[in-house]
C-alpha cells in the first residue's frame, strides 16, 4: 500500500492509484475538492483552475506550492494540503471570477438544486458578488426538441465540447468566439445531430443544457420518487433512474453501472420515457362484446372472463421480448410450455438463438460495454451501431483509441492528461474494420470498410476466420481484393484484445456464425477475443433462453387446428408478423386476449385487453445483449387497474382453475418459481435482495429526505393523508421514511451526499472513482462459455459451417434489407413526443446507379412488393448501398414486420397510389 499525506495525515492508497491524478485519488479518499473541467470519463485538462491544492517537497517544506490537483500524479509518500489557507483563498478567488457573469437565474433554472456549480460555490464559500460591472449575455440557440440551451449560465469549463466532439463524435457542436465571449453551441440553430446530445444535460456542471422534455412538467430532484431501473428501448440494458411526481414520469437520468453504462445514456433511452405518460395509455380492462367497441370493465370481471376462456377451449400464448422474464414465464406456465411462442419475428428469434448457441459453446465470451472499451482491435460485421445499439458507439470510440494511447504512454504521458494525449496521438486510431451494407456514422473511425450485401459480409467473416485458422471452413470464389482485405483484417485481429461485433441489423444468421468462427479462431491462436452482439429488444436474450415456439409456428397452429384463445403478452403482433400471418390470426382466432400498456394494431382487434404496467410501474427482470440479468423496480404505483402482466396471469391461473391460490402473489414468488423451473435462471432471484430485506430494520425509501408537499399533494381530493402505496414486491417503499444512509448499489435510486446535490455525488458511492459502486451489484451474467475459458492447446473447436453463397443481384428483383433508426424503430419510444418529432419518415433507399436504372429521382414515390405487403414510399438515394439492394426503414409506426432480408419488386408508383402499406 502506498501512502499519501493529506494535511499531515497519512492515507493509504491502492497501488494502482499511484500515478493517477491527485484530484481523483483525493475524491476517492472522501475529500471534498471543488472541480469543474475534470470528469472521470474524460480525464483532466487543467482548464478551470478550481481544484488547486498545495504540494510540499517533503516533510520539512513549510511553504509548498499551489498546483492543480487534477494535473499531478499521485506518488507514494507525497505530501499535499487541501486545507492550506493559501489554497483555500486561491480556490475562492477562482470561483469568484468564474461566477462574474453567472446570471441571477437559479429559481428558474432546471439545474437548480442539483447543480455542480451551486455545490462548488457553497463549498468554496463564495457568497457575494463584488464585481460592479454589468454581466455579459448571450443569445440561446434552438437545439431541437430534447435539449434546451441557456448560454448565459456558462462558466466555460469546456466539458460539453469535450464530450460532444471527443467522446460522442459529434461534429455540429463546438466552441465559438474568443476573449471573454466564448460560446458553446452550433454554428446556427438546429437539432443536435448526435444521438448522445442528451448527456450534455448531465455533463454540464451548471444549467446551460437542460432537459427540454422535463421542462414541460418540471420537478426538482428532491421531489422525485425514484427507483433503480433498466432502459427498455434497446438490447444493451443501460441502467437508469426514472423519476416520478404526481403520478407521471418526469425524467430519466443515468444510473452508474461500471460494467454496463458508465456515465452516459443515448437519447432514445433518456427521452423515450414519455410513452408512460401517454394520454392513450390503457388503464382499465377493456372487453368487446358482440363485435361492439371495447368497453371498460372491472378487473375482477376481466379475470373471470379470461378464466372462462381458458376453461372452455384450447389456448396458446405469445410472449414478448420487451416484457420481463417474469411475464414470459407466467404466460408459458398459464398456457403450458408446449403452447408458448416467442413474440418476436421468427428471423430475430433464430438470430438470437444462434448468438446464444455461440456464447454457450464458447470459448469466446460476450463483452460488456466496459470490456469493449478496453479492446484494441475491432472487426464489426453488418452493424449500423448508432441505430441498433447506440451506447456501444461510445465504447467502440474508446476502443479505437486504446492502441494510440498505449503508444502515447511510451512518451511518458500520464493516462489522465487528456489534452496532451490528444496532441500526441493526433488523428491516430487503432485498427477498426467493418463490413456493412451502407454508410454508417461510425465510418470516420474505421480503418477500412467493406460495403456489401449481408451474405457477402458473412463470407468476408468466414474468410477472415479461415485465414486465422485454416481449420475453419474456407470460402470459395472470393474476389482478389476481398481476399486481401480479409488478410489485412486477419493480421490485425491477432492482437492482445480483439473484439468481434455482430448482431441483428442485417437479419443474417450467417453473420453470427461467421463472427463465432473469427472469435473462436482467435481464441485458438491464444488471443483473448470477445464477442459483442446487438439484440433487437430489451429482453430478447432472456426470452430466447426460454423454451418456446417460433411465432410463425403459432400462426400455423392457429390456422390448422382449432385453437380458441390466443393470449398475447406485451407484443404487437402486427410488427412481428407478415401481413398475411397477422391476417390469418385475426380471421381464425375466436378469442384474442392482449396484455399491453398502449393501444396498437393488435389491441384494436382484441376481445379482452388487460392494462399492463410499463417499466416504471412494475418490477421485473431483463436480460441484456451480453446475457446480463438486471432487475428494474417499480418507481410509482400506477393509477387505474394497471399492474404487471405476470400479476394478471397469476390471477388467471386461479380463475381458470389451474391453481387453487395465486401461484405468484409477489415478485419473490415468481422469481423463485422461475429459478426452480428453468435452470439457466437459477441465479436470477439473487441479483437483488428479497422484499424482506431491511437495513437496521428499515426498508429503503423511494423518496428523498427532502421530498416536499406530503400533506398537500392530495389535499384537493381528500384532507386525509393517504398511507404510502403498499409494495410487497421489493425492499423499497413509496415513502420518504426508511433507511437514511447509503443502500446497497442494487437498491440505489438517487445520488446525494451532504454538500453534493448534483449527480457528482456519485463520487461518494463508488469504491474508487470510476470504479465499482459500494456493495456493487452489476447484475448476473447468465451465459458463460461452457468449460470456462480453456488454454489454447486444450481447445477443441468445432467451427460453424454453412458458408452462404455470394450475393447475386437479380434482374427484376431487389434484396430488401432493413434500415434501423434510433428514433423510429423502437415501438414504445415513438409514443414520446420528442422522439416522434425526430423520427425518420418511411422511405425506400437505393444507390444512385440503381435509382438511375429504374429511371427514378429522389423523392419520387416508388411501390415495392415484398412478400404479402405492398408499400409505397418516397425514394431516397443513398451512397454506400450495394447494387441490387434496397433498404427500407424497420419498425416505423404502421409498418408490418416483414421478415427481412427478402426479395421484392420495385416500380414507380402509379398516379394516385396512396403512400403507406397495404396487403397484396
Amino acid at each position, binding site marked *: 500500500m502506498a501512502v499519501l499525506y493529506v494535511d499531515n495525515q497519512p492515507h493509504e492508497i491502492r497501488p494502482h492509484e499511484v500515478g493517477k491524478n491527485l484530484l481523483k485519488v483525493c475524491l476517492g479518499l472522501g475529500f471534498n475538492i471543488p472541480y469543474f473541467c475534470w470528469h472521470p470519463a474524460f480525464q483532466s485538462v487543467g482548464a478551470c483552475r478550481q481544484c488547486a491544492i498545495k504540494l510540499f517537497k517533503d516533510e520539512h517544506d513549510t511553504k509548498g506550492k499551489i498546483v492543480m490537483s487534477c494535473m499531478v500524479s499521485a506518488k507514494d509518500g507525497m505530501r499535499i494540503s487541501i486545507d492550506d489557507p493559501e489554497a483555500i483563498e486561491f480556490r475562492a478567488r477562482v470561483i469568484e471570477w468564474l461566477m462574474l457573469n453567472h446570471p441571477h437565474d437559479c*429559481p428558474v433554472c432546471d439545474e437548480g438544486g442539483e447543480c455542480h456549480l451551486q455545490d462548488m460555490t457553497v463549498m468554496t464559500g463564495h457568497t457575494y458578488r463584488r464585481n460592479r460591472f454589468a*454581466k455579459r449575455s448571450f443569445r440561446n440557440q434552438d437545439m431541437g426538441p430534447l435539449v434546451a440551451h441557456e448560454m448565459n449560465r456558462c462558466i466555460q469549463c469546456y466539458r460539453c465540447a469535450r464530450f460532444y466532439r471527443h467522446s460522442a463524435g459529434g461534429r455540429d457542436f463546438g466552441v465559438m468566439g474568443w476573449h471573454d465571449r466564448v460560446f458553446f453551441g452550433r454554428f446556427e440553430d438546429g437539432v443536435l445531430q448526435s444521438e448522445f446530445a442528451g448527456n450534455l444535460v448531465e455533463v454540464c456542471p451548471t444549467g446551460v443544457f437542460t432537459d427540454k422534455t422535463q421542462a414541460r*412538467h418540471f420537478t426538482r430532484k428532491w421531489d422525485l420518487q425514484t427507483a433503480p431501473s433498466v432502459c427498455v428501448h434497446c438490447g444493451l440494458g443501460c441502467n437508469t433512474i426514472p423519476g416520478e411526481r404526481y403520478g407521471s414520469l418526469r425524467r430519466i437520468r443515468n444510473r452508474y453501472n461500471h460494467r454496463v453504462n458508465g456515465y452516459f445514456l443515448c437519447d432514445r433511452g433518456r427521452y423515450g420515457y414519455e410513452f408512460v405518460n401517454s394520454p392513450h395509455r390503457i388503464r382499465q380492462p377493456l372487453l368487446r362484446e358482440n363485435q361492439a367497441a371495447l368497453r371498460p370493465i372491472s378487473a375482477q370481471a376481466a379475470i373471470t372472463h379470461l378464466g372462462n376462456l381458458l376453461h372452455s377451449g384450447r389456448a396458446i400464448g405469445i410472449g414478448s421480448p420487451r416484457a420481463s422474464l417474469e411475464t414470459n414465464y407466467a404466460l408459458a406456465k398459464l398456457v403450458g410450455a408446449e403452447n408458448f411462442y416467442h413474440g418476436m419475428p421468427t428471423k430475430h428469434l433464430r438470430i438470437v438463438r444462434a448468438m446464444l448457441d455461440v456464447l454457450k459453446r464458447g470459448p469466446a465470451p460476450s463483452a460488456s460495454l466496459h470490456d469493449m472499451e478496453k479492446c484494441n482491435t475491432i472487426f464489426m460485421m453488418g452493424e449500423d451501431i448508432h441505430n441498433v445499439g447506440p451506447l456501444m458507439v461510445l465504447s467502440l470510440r474508446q476502443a479505437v483509441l486504446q492502441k494510440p494511447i498505449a503508444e502515447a504512454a511510451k512518451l511518458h504521458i500520464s493516462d489522465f492528461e487528456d489534452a496532451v494525449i490528444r496532441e500526441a496521438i493526433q488523428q491516430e486510431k487503432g485498427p477498426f474494420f467493418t463490413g456493412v451494407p451502407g454508410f454508417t456514422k461510425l465510418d470516420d473511425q474505421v480503418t477500412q470498410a467493406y460495403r456489401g450485401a449481408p451474405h457477402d459480409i458473412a463470407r468476408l467473416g468466414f474468410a477472415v476466420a479461415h485465414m486465422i485458422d485454416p481449420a475453419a471452413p474456407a470460402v470459395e470464389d472470393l474476389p482478389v481484393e476481398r481476399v486481401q482485405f480479409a488478410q489485412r483484417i486477419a493480421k490485425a485481429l491477432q492482437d492482445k484484445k480483439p473484439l468481434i461485433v455482430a448482431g441483428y441489423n442485417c437479419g443474417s444468421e450467417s453473420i453470427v456464425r461467421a463472427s463465432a468462427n473469427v472469435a473462436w479462431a482467435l481464441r485458438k491462436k491464444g488471443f483473448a477475443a470477445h464477442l459483442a452482439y446487438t439484440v433487437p429488444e430489451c429482453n430478447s436474450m432472456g426470452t430466447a433462453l426460454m423454451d418456446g415456439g417460433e411465432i410463425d409456428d403459432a400462426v400455423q397452429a392457429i390456422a390448422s387446428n382449432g385453437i380458441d384463445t390466443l393470449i398475447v403478452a406485451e407484443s404487437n403482433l402486427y410488427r412481428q408478423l407478415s401481413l398475411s400471418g397477422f391476417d390469418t390470426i385475426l380471421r381464425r382466432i375466436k378469442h384474442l386476449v392482449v396484455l399491453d400498456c398502449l393501444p396498437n394494431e393488435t389491441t384494436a382487434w382484441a376481445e379482452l385487453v388487460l392494462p399492463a404496467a410499463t417499466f416504471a410501474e412494475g418490477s421485473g427482470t431483463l436480460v441484456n445483449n451480453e446475457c446480463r440479468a438486471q432487475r428494474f423496480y417499480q418507481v410509482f404505483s400506477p393509477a387505474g387497474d394497471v399492474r404487471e402482466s405476470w400479476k394478471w396471469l397469476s390471477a388467471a391461473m386461479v380463475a381458470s382453475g389451474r391453481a387453487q391460490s395465486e401461484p405468484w402473489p409477489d415478485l419473490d414468488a415468481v422469481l423463485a418459481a422461475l429459478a426452480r423451473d428453468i435452470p439457466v435462471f437459477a441465479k436470477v432471484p439473487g441479483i437483488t435482495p428479497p422484499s424482506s430485506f431491511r437495513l437496521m430494520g428499515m426498508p429503503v425509501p423511494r423518496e428523498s429526505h427532502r421530498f416536499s408537499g406530503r400533506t398537500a399533494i392530495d389535499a*384537493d381530493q381528500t384532507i386525509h393523508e393517504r398511507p404510502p402505496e403498499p409494495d410487497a414486491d421489493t425492499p423499497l417503499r413509496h415513502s420518504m421514511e426508511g433507511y437514511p444512509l447509503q443502500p446497497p448499489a442494487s437498491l440505489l435510486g438517487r445520488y446525494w451526499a451532504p454538500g453534493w446535490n448534483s449527480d457528482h455525488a456519485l463520487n461518494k458511492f463508488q469504491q474508487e472513482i470510476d470504479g465499482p459502486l459500494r456493495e456493487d451489484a452489476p447484475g448476473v451474467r447468465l451465459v458463460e462459455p461452457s468449460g470456462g475459458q480453456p488454454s489454447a492447446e486444450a481447445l477443441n473447436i468445432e467451427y460453424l459451417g454453412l458458408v452462404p453463397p455470394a450475393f447475386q443481384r437479380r434482374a427484376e428483383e431487389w434484396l430488401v434489407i432493413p434500415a434501423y433508426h434510433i428514433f423510429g424503430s423502437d415501438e414504445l419510444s415513438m409514443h414520446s413526443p420528442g422522439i416522434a418529432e425526430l423520427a425518420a419518415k418511411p422511405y425506400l433507399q437505393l444507390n444512385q446507379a440503381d435509382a438511375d436504372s429504374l429511371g427514378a429521382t429522389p423523392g419520387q414515390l416508388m411501390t415495392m412488393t415484398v412478400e404479402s405487403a405492398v408499400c409505397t414510399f418516397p425514394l431516397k438515394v443513398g451512397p454506400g448501398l450495394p447494387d441490387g439492394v434496397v433498404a427500407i426503414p424497420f419498425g416505423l409506426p404502421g409498418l408490418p414486420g416483414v421478415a427481412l432480408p427478402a426479395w421484392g419488386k420495385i416500380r414507380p408508383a402509379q398516379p394516385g397510389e396512396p403512400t403507406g402499406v397495404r396487403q397484396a
Partner: protein
Amino acid sequence: MLSILRTIWRVFLHMFAHRPTVPYPEKQRVLPPRARGRIVLTRDPDGGERCVACYLCAAACPVDCIALQATQDETGRRYPEFFRINFSRCIFCGLCEEACPTYAIQLTPDYEMAECKRTSMVYEKEDLLIDGVGKHHQYNFYRVCGVAIGGKDKGQALEEQPPEDVKTLMP
C-alpha cells in the same frame, strides 16, 4: 388577614391598569406588518405573477403543506400551474417566505382563517394570489435574472450587457 387584604387591594388596582387583552371579536387589534398569518402570493410592480415555481418554499416547509407544479408560458416565463397550501397543516413559521427568492410568497397579519370544514382550509392558487406587491414594493425577479421572457429580451435585464456577437473577430 393582612395578606388577604393586600391581595384584594392589588386586584382592585388592576381594574385601572392597562389591559393587554382586547374584547375580540368586537374590537380587533392592529398587528405589525411582520406578523405571520395567512399566506399570500404577490405580484410584481408590473402586475405579473411573482412566483416562478422554483419549489424552494415547498422544500423549506417543515410540515410539507405546500404543493405546486411549475409550467411556463410560450415566452419562457415560469409560473405555477397550481399552487396549493394546506392551511390545516400550516404552522405559520414563515420559512417559505424566507426561502422565496422572488418575494412572491409572503405571510400577512390576517389570522382569521377558522373554518368549519377542514377541506376549506386547502387554498389553491386563486385563493392565494393577490393583486398587490405586499411588503416589497420594487422587486421584479425577471428584471434581474438572465433569462429572456416576453417583453424582456437578452441583455435587457438590469446590469446586463447587450448580447455578444460570437462571430465577430473584434477584440
